[in-house]
């Protein structure tokens, strides 16, 4: 399958990339592992691709002012193998290794995954649970979007036209924080049929995020209230799992019916809560 013809530019800086995007129907090419398959099927026909892989400022992972800063063009493999991530945000490393396969992890990027906002992708749940923020840059400069404000619908985000994700910023979890990501992977694609990320701080405050469940990843705030500050026992888990499925419009497709996803939501929340107990 061959994509429709397009122009190609490979800028060296974020400013050049933003300038290159202006005009109609341009798309950013990061890892290309969602975009190129869509273009081959002609579901997407951009007139220009702006390849951001020549922008060194978008690469690398560092710790800065109490935050871990992950460059948007970091691949899943870069993140999985990074020392800072392994020591301070280990569940990001574990989560990254559950994405796709070796070849996909070698090219797919965290920024691309967040911008694409596939309802079954893993990074949204992980970044949401970690209280992360998405740093973007556009014509009017930089701004930060909290992960909780970022995902707005099916393949939809708060990114505005000609804005580029430049980094993901996650507060360094304080000592005593426990975190896990539990996921039922689709057997072929490894996308999440249901994914549940839980971060529990030493004081008992608990963040819970789901992906794969609804049209976009989300924080389960009522469930968080049911769990936060409480010792996790069977009763709390039962209340939490019942709360988690209230008011959710479950996805239903040929991989899993809404009823099955509802069941899996309970199962994977329970697994995650048991792991961090």
């Amino acid at each position: 399958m061959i994509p429709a013809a397009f122009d190609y530019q490979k800028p060296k800086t974020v400013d050049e990339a933003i300038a290159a995007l202006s005009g109609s129907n341009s798309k950013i090419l990061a890892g290309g592992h969602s975009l190129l398959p869509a273009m081959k099927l002609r579901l997407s026909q951009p007139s220009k691709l702006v390849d951001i892989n020549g922008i060194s400022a978008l690469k690398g992972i560092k710790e800065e002012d109490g935050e871990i800063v992950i460059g948007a063009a970091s691949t899943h493999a870069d993140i999985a193998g990074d020392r800072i991530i392994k020591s301070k945000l280990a569940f990001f490393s574990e989560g990254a290794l559950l994405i796709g396969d070796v070849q996909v992890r070698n090219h797919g990027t965290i920024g691309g995954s967040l911008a694409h906002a596939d309802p079954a992708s893993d990074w949204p749940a992980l970044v949401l649970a970690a209280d992360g923020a998405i740093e973007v840059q556009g014509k009017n400069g930089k701004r930060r979007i909290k992960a909780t404000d970022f995902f707005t619908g099916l393949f939809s985000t708060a990114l505005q036209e000609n804005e580029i994700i430049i980094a993901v910023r996650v507060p360094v979890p304080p000592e005593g924080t426990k975190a896990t990501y539990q996921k039922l992977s689709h057997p072929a694609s490894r996308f999440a049929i249901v994914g549940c990320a839980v971060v529990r701080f030493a004081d008992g405050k608990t963040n819970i995020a789901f992906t794969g469940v609804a049209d976009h990843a989300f924080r389960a705030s009522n469930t968080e209230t049911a769990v936060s500050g409480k010792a996790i026992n069977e009763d709390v888990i039962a209340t939490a799992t019942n709360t988690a499925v209230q008011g959710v419009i479950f996805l239903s497709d040929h991989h899993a019916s809404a009823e099955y996803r509802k069941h899996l939501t309970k199962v994977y929340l329970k697994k995650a809560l048991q792991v961090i107990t």
Partner: protein
Amino acid sequence: MSIKITVTVNGVKHTDKVEPRLLLVHYLRDVLRLTGTHVGCDTSGCGACTILVNGKATKSCTMLAVQADKAKVTTIEGIASNGELHPLQEGFNQCHGLQCGFCTPGIIMTACDLLKNNKKPSEEEIRVALEGNFCRCTGYENIVKSIQYAADKMSAPKARKTKKEATV
């Protein structure tokens, strides 16, 4: 629109003008005539088109040729040296690691990436590394054995020498 790219493939520099929409796998097969890299599913599922780009296993059906500008690419044609098969090729031969052979180049290139980072992978590690490669003939048993054969051979040269010296 066509763009000039320079790609080093199996140690040989190639400069060509290509359309941005030309996929890397088609560049390799149709422009350079390196047809050892196969197109299977063409949707980045099956891994038949796996090559190494700057040493990393890559599905070449999901990468544009223009993205490989200035990169070092290794395909199945580039892993034998001085007329001697690569230990992985020898392993697939010795352990009957293929039947129809269509998936084999991709699997060998994925295994190259694995063995570079993990000299002595366990059976489970090999199976996890092959998640992105489909074989519809073998049931994977002999593929795993072939990769283990190569891992043993690649990590054993010193031991072999000692043995040889001992017999001499």
